[in-house]
């Protein structure tokens, strides 16, 4: 057994967020050049098969979406002129109106997939990341629609759910995850999330100063993360509305609805019981 993997320590591996030692990513989209090194590094390290060998026509994006075999996905957003559909004549302060963003599992502080998982296959690790244990997952697929960001997916080859592990196997050996290691512009930065958040705030302030007034942190814990979800361990610096990057603006934790949904159902059960008693009563 590798002593570096404290798998039996109940303090470290639990289903609720242990905030100490939380690790994550800051993905600064203002630095992304769309080289896809993160996608490739992720596939190489995690031995993920290729997928979607086709031209999508979606700018330079041929990966389309996060999936069971794509854990990093670079989106290419060409912002066209509203009036004639061409590139705008006057460029905004940076990136020539071309947004690139490397999407990934957000490793939510309150994770919909983790709470949905009926087998306990999805756990929170000592790094506060969310990992699917492949030896437990039975492929029920409930985590797939339970993620407000559309991250986990069932694999067509082994029929189990897969998503980013934040390179758990590298972190336990004190290695930086593959994607941030490969990122040539430091658009993807890895580290303790408190430190990353401070860095993100400094960066946003700097961007504002330099004229990019639209920069903000998506998943900012100081304002409750995305409002519905209490915080993302992988957060982003964005310069347009979340929907432009195909991110939900205010995603909610699906399981927050379970309590009132059961209450309503209980009320309905009483009503139905009363109706049935009235209708079936013997004379």
């Amino acid at each position, binding site marked *: 057994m590798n002593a570096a993997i404290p798998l039996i320590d109940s303090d470290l591996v639990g289903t609720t967020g242990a905030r100490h030692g939380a690790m994550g990513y800051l993905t600064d989209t203002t630095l992304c050049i769309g080289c896809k090194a993160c996608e490739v590094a992720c596939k190489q390290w995690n031995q993920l098969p290729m997928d979607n060998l086709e031209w*999508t026509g*979606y700018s330079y994006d041929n990966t389309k*979406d996060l999936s069971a075999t794509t854990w990093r996905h670079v*989106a290419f957003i060409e*912002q*066209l*002129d*509203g009036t004639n559909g061409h590139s705008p*004549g*006057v460029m*905004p302060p940076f990136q020539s*109106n071309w947004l690139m963003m490397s999407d990934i599992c957000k490793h939510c502080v309150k994770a919909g997939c983790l*709470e*949905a*998982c009926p087998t*306990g*296959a999805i756990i929170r690790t000592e790094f506060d990341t969310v990992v699917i244990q492949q030896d*437990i997952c*039975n*492929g*029920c697929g*409930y985590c*797939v629609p*339970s993620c407000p*960001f*559309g*991250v986990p*997916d069932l694999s067509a080859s082994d*029929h189990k759910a897969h998503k980013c592990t934040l390179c758990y196997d590298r972190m336990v050996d004190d290695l930086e995850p593959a994607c941030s290691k490969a990122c040539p512009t430091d658009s993807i930065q890895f580290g303790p999330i408190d430190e990353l958040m401070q860095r993100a705030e400094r960066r*946003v302030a700097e961007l504002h100063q330099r004229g990019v*007034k*639209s920069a*903000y942190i998506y998943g*900012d814990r100081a*304002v409750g993360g995305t*409002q519905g979800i209490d915080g993302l361990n992988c957060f982003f610096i964005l310069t347009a*509305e979340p929907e432009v990057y*195909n991110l*939900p*603006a*205010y995603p*909610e934790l699906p*399981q927050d609805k*379970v309590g009132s*949904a*059961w209450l*309503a*159902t209980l*009320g*309905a*059960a009483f*009503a*139905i*019981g009363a*109706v*049935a*008693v009235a*209708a*079936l009563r*013997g004379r």
Partner: protein
Amino acid sequence: MTTRYERTWDNRRKQSKQTPADESANGARSVTDQTRASYYGVPVIHKPHWKWLIIVYFFVGGISGASYVLASIAHLVGGKDAGRIVRAGRYLSLAALLPSPILLILDLGRPERFHHMLYILKLRSTMSVGTWILTIFSGFCGLSALIQAAEDGLLSRIGFANRLLLALPAKAIGAIGSLFGFGMSGYTGILIAATAVPFWAKNYRLMGPLFLTSALSNASAAITLTLSLARGTSHSTLQRLEHLDMLAAIGELTLLIMARRNLGPVIARPLREGSLGNIYRWGVLGVGITAPLALLSLTRLKPHAAPRLLAGISAALTLIGGFLFRYVFVMAGRASADDPQATYEFTRRERPLG
């Protein structure tokens, strides 16, 4: 440093509305226009893989739970001539239950690992709660069916078991089992509501009651159909069931209208457009609810015009409608998960923050 106020998107949106010049100065589309566009139409969330196995399970599982509830209620308050309803309800409940675990296990990506769900209970995971409801309900359902078999004299050859089953408190078992029967019929609605799928989650308070009411209507129809085919069913028994059928159909219609209104135009798109919209309009609302209601009203107006035939036909139509309801709601959920506009609409929030 940015203030807390500036950091929230609601407030940012307000600001951009106040100063549209900032956005359009460089000739680019306004932010809100881009929002309407979406990222090449790629879905924001992933849809579940659930299809026919789950649709059929939602149908038979609902009937199983609600038949059990109806049989138990008939046993408790129905008096002497409710015996046929009790018998039909208990046997139907078991018959509908038997395929349920098979359908669910076949739907798993790794069916041989189904037992991984039985080592843990997570109250906030409706799949986990549902697994346990199904497991416990199976016990009650099987036991009540055995009691019925003993009462019908089918087990008289096994003297010991026969005596034991007849000595059991059948009414108490039915009452406790009914709680799980309700759970069986209703949890499926909560299961799909507690997801990020706009079509399901938008109506999270209505999905459980809707599935429950539909299950009751289907179970009542299944019992009516069985008894209308059986010889010697009394007129009063059928009348009681028809009464229940009507009330259930009216309840279902009310909930469907409420759900449709609450969805709004964007998220309800699958109900309006395409073949799914047609199946919803003509199949669920027409064949499943309006036609049975009309037939049942007819039997009330003319009590002697072939009551058994009309009751049987209306019950069969209700069952077809109940199945189509589950088909439409599962498929519409999948369609809305694929529609980025539905997700944007669902995750947009107008309430002030911070």
